């Protein structure tokens, strides 16, 4: 609650918060099926209609309502983004903490494995994962998640190493606190802030990566809609039916804008340097 108040007290945080809030609402409506039309129903007599009263954002090649698909697509894209980032956060946090805390050989081995993943071309990694496992929502989640895991591992490991050298960890050691206690209460708890910032920014990347995978035909499977799939499906209809590109394109851009604004705001709010008293 405190953090929400802080976000809304922050200039760009307010805008970002509102954008993300609206998207979450739309995503929930989309996932619950509370859309003006059924997003996969094909009104085949109304194919490729420009935006009008009945179809606010027009219809697509199949006569499906673009507005409804957009809502469902936001739901789908956000689902993929959230779960893939959750995957990367979880895996990255565990691995990063393990590397930082166990140190020495473990650190070396874990970070070399992360180096392998980082050095491996990301889009190829995702592509291989999707091709092996077959495309689908959960494959995309895992693929994007694995691609971002090394990044989160690094994000966690750095601060964890410096936290490990902090005095309150020394203090805990003088009481003989167990490793698990120190890692969870002293390291993890203090990583929440930098992780939150990273998560909001990663959500924006994940949305873009999902769009890229869909462009290569490896993302969400039809007839389900995702912003990326709608956008990539529209590419050869750009001249015939520009609204098919405009609306999902704007939807992606604004959502990423929202996440970025929110992330920046969180960085300001959570970064102790920003609260440094003027000298």
């Amino acid at each position, binding site marked *: 609650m405190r953090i929400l108040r802080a976000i809304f007290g922050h200039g760009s945080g307010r805008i970002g918060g509102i954008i993300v809030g609206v998207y979450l609402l739309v995503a929930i409506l989309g996932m619950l099926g509370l859309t003006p039309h059924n997003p996969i129903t094909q009104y085949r007599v109304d194919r490729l209609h420009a935006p009008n009263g009945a179809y606010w954002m027009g219809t697509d090649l199949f006569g499906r309502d673009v507005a409804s698909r957009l809502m469902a697509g936001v739901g789908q894209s956000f689902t993929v983004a959230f779960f893939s980032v959750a995957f990367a956060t979880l895996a990255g946090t565990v691995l990063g903490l393990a590397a930082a805390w166990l140190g020495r050989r473990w650190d070396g081995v874990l970070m070399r494995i992360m180096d392998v993943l980082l050095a491996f071309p990301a889009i190829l990694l995702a592509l291989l994962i999707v091709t092996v496992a077959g495309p689908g929502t959960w494959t995309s989640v895992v693929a994007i998640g694995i691609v971002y895991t090394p990044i989160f591992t690094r994000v966690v490991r750095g601060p964890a190493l410096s936290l490990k050298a902090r005095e309150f960890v020394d203090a*805990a*050691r003088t009481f003989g606190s167990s490793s698990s206690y120190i890692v969870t209460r002293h390291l993890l*708890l203090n990583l929440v802030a930098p992780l939150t910032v990273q998560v909001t920014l990663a959500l924006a990347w994940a949305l873009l990566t999902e769009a890229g995978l869909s462009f290569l035909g490896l993302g969400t499977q039809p007839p389900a809609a995702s912003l990326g799939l709608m956008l990539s499906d529209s590419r050869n209809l750009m001249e015939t039916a520009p609204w098919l590109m405009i609306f999902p394109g704007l939807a992606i851009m604004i959502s990423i804008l929202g996440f970025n604004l929110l992330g920046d705001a969180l960085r300001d709010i959570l970064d102790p340097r920003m609260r440094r008293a*003027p000298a």
Partner: protein
Amino acid sequence: MTPLLSVSDLRVGFGRNPQANEVVRGVSFDLADGETLAIVGESGSGKSVTALSINRLIDFGGGRITGGAIKLKLADGSLFDLMTASEPQLTGIRGAEIGMIFQEPMTSLNPVLTIGRQIEESFQLHRGLTGRQATAAARDALDRVRIPDAARRLKYTPNQLSGGMLQRVMIAIALACNPRLLIADEPTTALDVTVQAQIMALLAELKRETGMSMIFITHDIGLVAGIADKVMVMQNGQAVEQGELNQILDNPQHPYTQHLLHAVPHFANGSATRSDGRRDKGASTEPALKVDGLVVRFPLKSSFFSRATGAVHAVDGVDFDLMPGETLAIVGESGSGKSTTARAVLGLVRSTRGSFSVGVRKASAEQSALPVQMVFQNPYASLNPRLSIESILAEPVIATGGRVKAETRARMVSLLERVGLPKNSLERYPHEFSGGQRQRLCIARALMLNPSVVVLDEAVSALDVSVQAKVLELLVDLQREFGLAYLFISHDMAVVERIAHRIAVIYAGQIVEIGDATSVLSKPKHSYTKKLIAAVPTIDRRHEHFELDTRQVPSLVRPQGFEPAPARWEQFGPDHRARAEA
């Protein structure tokens, strides 16, 4: 005659609504040519903001001058209004007319530029010197602040120089263009006491040479005695008292000034040591802690594959014992190994050699799980900001396999009360407490396990002076009440004098002098101890001529397999001995 600088009714605020958030509230003072004004106050008193307002640097720090006047007399006698001046006009004044040095020399110099370039810049800006001329001028400036081998040092970057050297470089930069006013904002606070003495000496000497005026800002009223002509004491954004040096020191009017002068520890050459709990010669009590031949070395490797080629001898053969109810202070400067000693006792760094024995406490019926506990220097860093006070206090209990029971909570409450914190503290978080309160929390946490020995590593150094005094009092009370033995690590002789029964002086990883506090402080025997004590500023030594000494701390790096020669000790009293010097 018009003063060089005249400040009247200065008001400075911060934030969106500076009028409502005033930090300086109506400060006025005059400064004559060649005069030194010391502004004394604790953190938050507005002393730094006042200083930054004079050259209008406060504009860049988020502050706004909301009222008052600042007038500077220029060389031609005309008055320059600093309040209304435009930014380009101000850049002409800064550096040329008003020089400034800051508290942290490590961060106040640009880390990526050579110090030569940073000094040259002043000459370029105000004298239009370039190329070889500027370099020559920069070399002269370094010579002037007594930096040996100036030509070579010009090519150094700040990370290659020690803090004391850097502060000299800062002074060289500030004085490059012979400003008529130097503002020194806590210039020695971050430095070791002997280095502080050198910087103070340098400032005094340069002032004599150039005849400039100076505003000297400090929290340490003891430091003022050596340099100031006039003193202004600030509290909560207001000047509570100002006047001539002697008048303020000898006849303070305002209660706050009196408090600063009397309630706060000032070094008194061993005359203010504790009279209670002296070591009882005849008694054969078991020591609470006995350290024997402690050695801590950090191996140096030249590459990944090769073996260690040498080692940093951080602690090199330290032994001492500590009786229940006794305070042993370990004093030394940064890098001397005093903190490493403390951390080795706690097992935070692995000792290379040596043994500890911890005596079982007899005074208490309860057996403590962990008889040695520690309080750290930085109260802001040693409490996890994300945990409630209850969790923080519970941690030692949980760590030693205990359960948080009703009696544990009762102990928390009573300890909090004992260290002087409100009872409702348990649900609160560290950021809701002040620095002094946090250090009290750390003390309470250390006492949760009912230890026999508490290691206090610079435990009061980060606190404001008046808070420092109160925490020291608390420590003494607790020691009496629980029969605690303190291993008190500090660089501050004044503080040590107030709390120590015995003192060990450590230099380059070795104890050079150890013994009864009064004896060591009043009759130091080892040359290093003497130098250390001589460097401590006191109220009594006014306008004293400090001696310049440019020696550096010796390197602690030794070749592989090096062992120091066994120490020869000279005994100077029943409980006072010093290492024999070659």
